[in-house]
């Protein structure tokens, strides 16, 4: 039921009403509404009950295990949220003079420094407001670099097919032609294909590492050499940074630019559609092109670096400092963890993924890349199960909802048929992982003995199996009064 369907004419929620009517002045007559907007008319209690009920139906990391691969759905410590919401932060105006916001600026400066250290880069800008924006700016900087050298014949960006789907889109948005290269049987980038693809037309390579196959590229050092020798730059999609946090630095691998998804790795809940935050880190040669503002410290005082300080900057990405609240959460998170804690994040993310992979394999699930150690996530393929029982990856995913788990990512990456991409993240206990394996085992048995039960799942959720074809074809997103 929608909030609109609770609406009764004349009912009011006074806590949400304006204290005094606000007259509209200076707006041309033709732009003013003739009739009031269609808003739900409900009491305060109706509104509270409606949204509380919705929250009870919601599936979330706060209620259940959420092994959604590629998304890093981990627990975000409450302390990060409550400290980021201190009134002194909340009340700060983004345009307030630097002298009155030294505390906030100090947090941002330290976060820049810590992220530089974690990634091994020479500079960090915190302004990008989402992973896609971080990517866009990373490739825009690569373009600005080549152009500043008059090197305009570089028109191609190489993207392995195990990359995040946004990588090729980013390259196209920046005016490049995408050259896709294949993955070998082991899940690594095909090095011969890479050598054949690079040349004087290569502007750069975008690598998601660990890749969406859940493996760490074995030949990353060699790849970096091949691309640099051809005059191209290297872009690191840091979306899967959770797996290597504090262990390996993209800067040491030879990368020129990286974006980091704070909303995955650094304590902002992810998957709700935002807000995100994706700082970019750059190597020495891209420092002149970084997006502003950046925080600097001079004689113990913090201040913003702007276009005046970085004249070749590719510019600004948001009205001010990106998503300041997400940046604060990340800052508190890294300070709570410390360097040692970050190592533990990577260790437990990898341990949990490998434990779960081994246990699922033991109960009869086929692992897509069985010879490889999982980074922080891994892929199960149900191709064989589908052939034998007709039960596919989507059916298994839906049945998991009945068992009280959020489904893993399904049908991604596209390279692996009937796949589940599973990422437990470091915050889950062995008991949770064992219970998940037991449920997966049950589903496997159900698929063999009573496949219809699995095919028609879910059976216990507030909304049952949806007609996803009709939902896509006949989009119905606007409520109209009956």
């Amino acid at each position, binding site marked *: 039921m929608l909030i609109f369907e609770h609406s009764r004419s004349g009912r009011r929620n006074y806590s949400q009403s304006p204290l005094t009517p606000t007259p509209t002045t200076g707006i041309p007559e033709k732009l003013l509404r003739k009739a009031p907007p269609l808003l739900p008319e409900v009491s305060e209690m109706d509104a509270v009950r409606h949204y509380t009920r919705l929250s009870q139906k919601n599936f979330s990391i706060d209620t259940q295990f959420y092994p959604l691969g590629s998304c890093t759905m981990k627990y975000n410590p409450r302390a990060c949220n409550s400290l980021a919401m201190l009134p002194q932060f909340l009340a700060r105006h983004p345009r307030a003079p630097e002298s009155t916001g030294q505390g906030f600026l100090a947090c941002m400066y330290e976060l820049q420094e810590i992220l530089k250290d974690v990634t091994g880069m020479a500079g960090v800008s915190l302004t990008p407001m989402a992973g896609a924006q971080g990517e866009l700016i990373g490739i825009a900087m690569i373009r600005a670099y080549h152009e500043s050298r008059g090197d305009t014949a570089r028109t191609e960006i190489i993207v392995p097919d195990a990359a995040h789907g946004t990588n090729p889109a980013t390259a196209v948005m920046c005016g490049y032609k995408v050259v896709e290269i294949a993955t070998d049987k082991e899940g690594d980038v095909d090095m011969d294909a890479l050598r054949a693809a690079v040349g004087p037309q290569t502007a750069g390579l975008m690598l998601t590492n660990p890749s969406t196959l859940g493996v760490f590229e074995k030949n990353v050092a060699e790849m970096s050499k091949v691309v640099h020798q051809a005059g191209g730059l290297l872009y690191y999609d840091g979306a899967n940074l959770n797996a290597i946090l504090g262990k390996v630095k993209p800067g040491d691998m030879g990368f020129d630019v990286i974006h980091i998804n704070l909303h995955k790795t650094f304590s902002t809940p992810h998957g709700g559609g935002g807000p995100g935050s994706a700082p970019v880190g750059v190597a020495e040669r891209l420092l002149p092109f970084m997006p502003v503002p950046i925080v600097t410290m001079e004689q113990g005082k913090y201040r913003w670096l702007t276009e005046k300080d970085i004249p070749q900057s590719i510019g600004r990405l948001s009205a001010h400092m990106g998503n300041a609240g997400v940046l604060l959460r990340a800052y508190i998170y890294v300070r709570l963890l410390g360097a040692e804690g970050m190592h533990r994040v990577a260790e437990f993310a990898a341990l949990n993924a490998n434990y779960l992979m081994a246990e699922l394999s033991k109960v009869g699930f086929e692992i897509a890349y069985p010879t490889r150690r999982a980074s922080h996530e891994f892929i199960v393929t149900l191709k064989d199960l589908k052939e034998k029982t007709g039960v596919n990856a989507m059916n298994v995913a839906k049945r998991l909802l009945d068992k009280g788990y959020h489904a893993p990512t399904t049908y991604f990456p596209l390279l692996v048929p009937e796949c589940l991409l599973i990422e437990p993240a470091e915050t889950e206990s062995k008991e949770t992982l064992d219970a998940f394996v037991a449920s997966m085992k049950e589903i496997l048995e159900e698929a063999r003995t009573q496949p219809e039960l699995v095919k028609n799942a879910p059976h216990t959720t507030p909304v049952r199996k949806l007609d*996803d*074809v009709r939902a*896509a074809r006949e989009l119905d997103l606007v409520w109209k009064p009956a």
Partner: protein
Amino acid sequence: MSIPNNLRYTKSHEWVRLEGDGTATVGITQHAQELLGDMVFVETPAVGRKLKQSEECAVVESVKAAADVYAPIAGEVTAVNPELESAPEKINQDAYEAWLFKLKPDNASDLDKLLDATAYQNIIESEDH
């Protein structure tokens, strides 16, 4: 797995049939529709568009993913299947009946360079792992 002998194929899972009037009919294979699952939208090229070989020229979108369709051979688009706009599920029902577009080949002999049924079958099998 249905792979008719009278058609030619591409690595990217298109099928091509040379018609008596010299035009070539193009669709996606049974294997491709099976991987993609239930179709929700099909976007076909404009009639009259000149295509280069391997050029992206159509999009098939399913509940799982959107996939590009590539021109198997160079030529000019002469017709598109009007049924698919309202009934994309026809591709799932019979992938070799539900053609996407027809083109007039620049060079009819280009067809001979495409895969035959056996070669296409081998490609599918080698993709399985």
